[in-house]
């Protein structure tokens, strides 16, 4: 359960105070797949950093399972937009990194299990520069899952992938989520992606951002991009987002 109440964050740049998040309220229930969309530059990444305890809010509260987020006390599985694999480690050592930082035993066994889950059996000894962009994302996902996180946070994880790989990754993520039954917070600027994978889509306003509306997507998985309800959800959210972009 993630509860944000009156969350605000501002940065000081020189003499100016830049307000990035202003009075944001958000509730995500346990085990949900929640998507967050917003105009680019609205503060999505800042929100994610507060969610995993990398940044502290200026005011308001953010509680995960009743506690303020702190990666030293809780475990998060964060998947970043940029490539975050360590190029000097092979695939299995990259997956083991979180396990080693949390001093979890049987790291080899656990890492192998999650590499199998993301379909990278046999690639343990490869180095990041030897595998494709989609495979790197799979490694990052395996690394995040391996620590058995309380929540999984994804910041535009598939933004750098080509359309085909992206669509495959969306399906695989859904299948992993259905197996693990974990809360996923998935930040994207791609409305089609959000409607395809999310149980709910929260639309953020332009900066300083807050939640404009949360739309519950009442469609069964697997979803068809061509079905009329899918298209109507997509059009509705695109419309909400459009209001924000055009008022910039």
């Amino acid at each position, binding site marked *: 359960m993630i509860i944000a109440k009156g969350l605000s964050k501002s940065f000081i740049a020189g003499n100016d105070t830049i307000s990035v998040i202003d009075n944001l309220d958000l509730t995500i229930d346990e085990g949900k797949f929640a998507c967050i969309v917003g105009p680019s530059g609205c503060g999505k990444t800042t929100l994610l950093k507060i969610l995993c305890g990398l940044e502290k809010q200026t005011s308001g509260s953010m509680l995960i399972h009743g506690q303020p987020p702190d990666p030293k006390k809780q475990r998060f599985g964060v998947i*970043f937009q940029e*490539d*975050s694999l360590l*190029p000097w480690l092979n695939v299995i050592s990259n997956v083991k*990194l979180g396990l080693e*930082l949390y001093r979890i035993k049987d790291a080899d066994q656990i890492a192998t299990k999650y590499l199998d889950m993301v379909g990278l059996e046999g690639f343990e000894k490869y180095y990041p520069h030897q595998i494709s962009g989609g495979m790197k994302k799979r490694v990052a996902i395996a690394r995040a899952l391996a620590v058995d996180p309380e929540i999984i946070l994804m910041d535009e994880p598939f933004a750098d992938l080509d359309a085909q790989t992206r669509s495959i990754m969306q399906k695989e993520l859904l299948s992993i989520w259905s197996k693990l039954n974990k809360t996923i917070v998935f930040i994207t600027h791609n409305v089609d992606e959000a409607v395809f994978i999310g149980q709910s889509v929260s639309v953020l306003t332009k900066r300083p951002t807050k939640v404009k509306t949360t739309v519950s997507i009442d469609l069964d998985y697997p979803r068809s991009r061509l079905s009329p309800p899918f298209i109507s959800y997509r059009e509705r959210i695109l419309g909400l987002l459009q209001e924000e972009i055009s008022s910039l």
Partner: protein
Amino acid sequence: MLDLDVTIMPKMDRFRSVLIGVASLAVFVVAWQAITMATNSPFLPTPVQVFQAFLKISTIGDIDGYTLWWHIGVSLYRVLLGFAVAVITAVPLGLLMGVKPLVKNVASPITEIIRFIPPIAWIPLSIILLSGINRYIFLLWIGIFFPILLDTIAGVKRTSETQVNMAKSFGADNTAIIKKIIFPSALPEIMNGLRVGLGVGWMCIVAAEMMGGEPVGLGRLILKYANLLQIDVVVLGMVVIGLIGLAMNYLLLSGERRLFKWRVEIKA
């Protein structure tokens, strides 16, 4: 097209460049021989004379009975000691200066001035203050410390912010971040600093050994025979210094290539 170039060229290139290199060296030695024969100066030894000096000094030894191998061993020992002290001090300080702005602000005014004082300028002071092996270690440390320090700081700057955030998201503390992310990120630059530092150290040792002390070391060998006006041994010492410097550089470079396959791949 590009693939073809990349896969076929290296083999051809390597063979040809070795061939050209050997030919160039042969031309150099022949030219050296020709010049010495033309000038006919008693102070300019021929390659053959230098080789004869090599046979003599490496088997019988010099005027004090020390063989060439002993001189080489002593010089190498001093360089490696000074090198070790420089690595142990420069790498941690460089990491700290790269990570903590406060440490950098405190240390850099001092290091920025000292690094422009050549090791040779430290010799008089070191003769007064230090003796024995400590003097050599100090002079080498002064020479080797700064290339390693500067490259370590530069290496830390290459650390990716995403990688640091990733480690933090797994609850990593500062020590873990330095160990798991910053140090490995900086390692290619640090290795480069080690290579440059070792080269500088090898040059420093000759100067340091010429300033007196024990009658051993390659620098001292050169000085002894310069005083005797036996230039063949002087040139022998110079050639040996060059060859050993080359060998050390080669060893470190091949170590770097093996260690940083993940980075070198792009060039191939």
